[in-house]
């Protein structure tokens, strides 16, 4: 058996790939394909049954109704803002953890960053609601800004960890070499640290970006009167039972993410998650 497998690299590879590909390639991609297929169906609004006849109607609605564009752009803006804030906050933290902290304290810092992941997402969002409400710790009120802040807070660890890992892998000797060649700290950062940590940054941004793009709960808690694309999807499936239209709306974040993934694929970020 073992000797047989030894001589058949192809068989070994197929065995290894079979389960993951069946699961993700067939089941998951299949489910996605089926979902987007229904985007071309209609629905009986009274009984909620699908009407399986091909129609562009859902996409026509999506494209021609201005409000969906507004919401899509707002969601994109929120996701970008969250990513930018997380990057600005996470990078110095990750840098201090990876390059300034002693190896002993590093372990504790990683724990400190990981711990909040276990406190429920909802509870943390509500804690922000409490802090943002008038008379609260911050008292800044609710709205898009509050949503951005809350989401940035929720996803911050997902940005810190990849950047930390990326910076830790960066040999100190490269930074020393740059200093040795006459570069000051800011320049070392610009020419060495940033380009080499960039794939890790992109990896972190995949998390913050996609998690923000798909969120519909935090915005309900701190968003005031605003809504995001996730709410539209959710309302259509959850409240209106209109799966075809929900699927059509869902293509928007999916397309955005696919474009994003395609763009960052070459940076090697996908191996840094």
């Amino acid at each position, binding site marked *: 058996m073992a000797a047989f497998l030894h001589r058949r690299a192809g068989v070994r590879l197929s065995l290894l790939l079979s389960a993951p590909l069946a699961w993700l390639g067939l089941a998951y991609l299949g489910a996605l394909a089926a979902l987007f297929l229904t985007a071309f169906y209609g629905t009986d*609004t009274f009984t*909620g049954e699908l009407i399986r006849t091909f129609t562009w109607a859902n996409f026509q609605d999506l494209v021609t109704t201005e409000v969906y564009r*507004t919401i899509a752009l707002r969601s994109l803006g929120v996701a970008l803002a969250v990513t930018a804030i997380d990057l600005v906050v996470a990078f110095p933290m990750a840098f201090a953890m990876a390059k300034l902290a002693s190896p002993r304290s590093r372990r504790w810092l990683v724990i400190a960053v990981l711990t909040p992941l276990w406190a429920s997402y909802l509870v943390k969002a509500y804690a922000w609601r409490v802090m943002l409400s008038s*008379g609260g710790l911050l008292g800044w009120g609710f709205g898009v800004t509050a949503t951005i802040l809350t989401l940035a807070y929720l996803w911050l660890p997902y940005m810190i960890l990849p950047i930390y890992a990326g910076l830790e892998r960066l040999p100190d000797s490269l930074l020393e070499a740059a200093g040795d060649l006459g570069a000051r700290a800011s320049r070392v950062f610009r020419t060495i640290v940033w380009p080499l940590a960039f794939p890790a940054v992109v990896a972190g941004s995949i998390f913050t970006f996609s998690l923000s793009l798909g969120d519909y709960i935090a915005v309900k808690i701190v968003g005031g009167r605003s809504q995001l694309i996730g709410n539209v999807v959710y309302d*259509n499936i*959850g*409240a209106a039972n209109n799966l075809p*239209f929900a699927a059509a709306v869902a293509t928007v974040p999916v397309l955005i993410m696919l474009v994003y993934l395609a763009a960052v694929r070459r940076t090697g970020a996908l191996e840094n998650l």
Partner: protein
Amino acid sequence: APAPGRSGFAPPKIDALQSVGTGEGQVNLVAWAGYVEDGSTDPKVDWVTPFEQATGCQVNTKIAGTSDEMVNLMRTGEYDAVSASGDASLRLIAAGTVAPVNTSLIPSYTDVFDGLKSKPWNSVNGVAYGVPHGRGANLLMWRTDTVKPAPDSWSVVFDPASPYKGKVTAYDSPIYIADAAVYLMATKPDLGIKNPYALDDKQFQAAVDLLKQQKQIIGEYWSDYTKEIQAFKSGDSVVGTTWQVIVNVAKGEKAPVEAVLPKEGATGWSDTWMVAAKAAHPNCAYKWLDHIISPKANAQVAEYFGEAPSNAKACQETADAKHCETFHATDEAYFSKVHYWTTPIAQCLDGRTGVTCKDYAEWTRAWTEIKG
């Protein structure tokens, strides 16, 4: 006059149960959170265990978050009974998912308020499809320290020049369009709205426009009651729609609030326990229906969930002697001003023919557009 209840469409022919035999040992329920409590959330809140002990029917519950989830869950055929709201019940009936209920097999039914029997959302052509569970109205709440004088009209939340701009709140759901329709019924009679859930193009557009205008003064939309109580307590919201239970809790937390059923009337809800057409445990289901509207259990649910009980005798069983009074349980005049939530469908619910009304999918899209 047509028979009470919905008319105009013919549900599939399904026979009601003729007699209740011994229980099957278990029953599977689909319910709103708080309707089926077995002490797991709070040991003091438990009306399932006594039922299980008395009937030998073990209760399995699936909590549904929305009416649509209820419809979908019931369609799987795994469940015996459901606590459907008015915006789900008709769909269940029309699809043949639930069967008519033989109310003579449910002794407690006799004590149910007449104002809840044979209503458009729980019966068709005089045939009952379930037993009423409880009811409540969507009231107008305000903070007494900031909102003066005390409002008695919805105009306070629709007036674009409201002094409370940015602190007005509204319920975050497409069904809230009906609240605007109720207001329009009173303020713009020439639109001819008879039923806030049956809106033709023009009427619908008017309601939507009103809400878009309202959005300018909204601070936030609320969807859960912790959020609303907190907003009123902190002063982030000072006026807006509410439920009686929210008013009570907020007052309990010493928030300076009051609530009223405004003069234009209001929307509200009334839930119905229904039995699946293909129920695997029909006997236990009937026993559950009888139990949940029996005075004691009905009182417990009403108090825990914060609504008016459906059983008149429940008012003697409440822990808080004034519960029925607070929730206007016996006040039929009060509830006559309430338009219970019903699913808007293309076929106008007010009996009009020749026009199509906006269905719920379009309400949903409009709601998205209103929020922008």
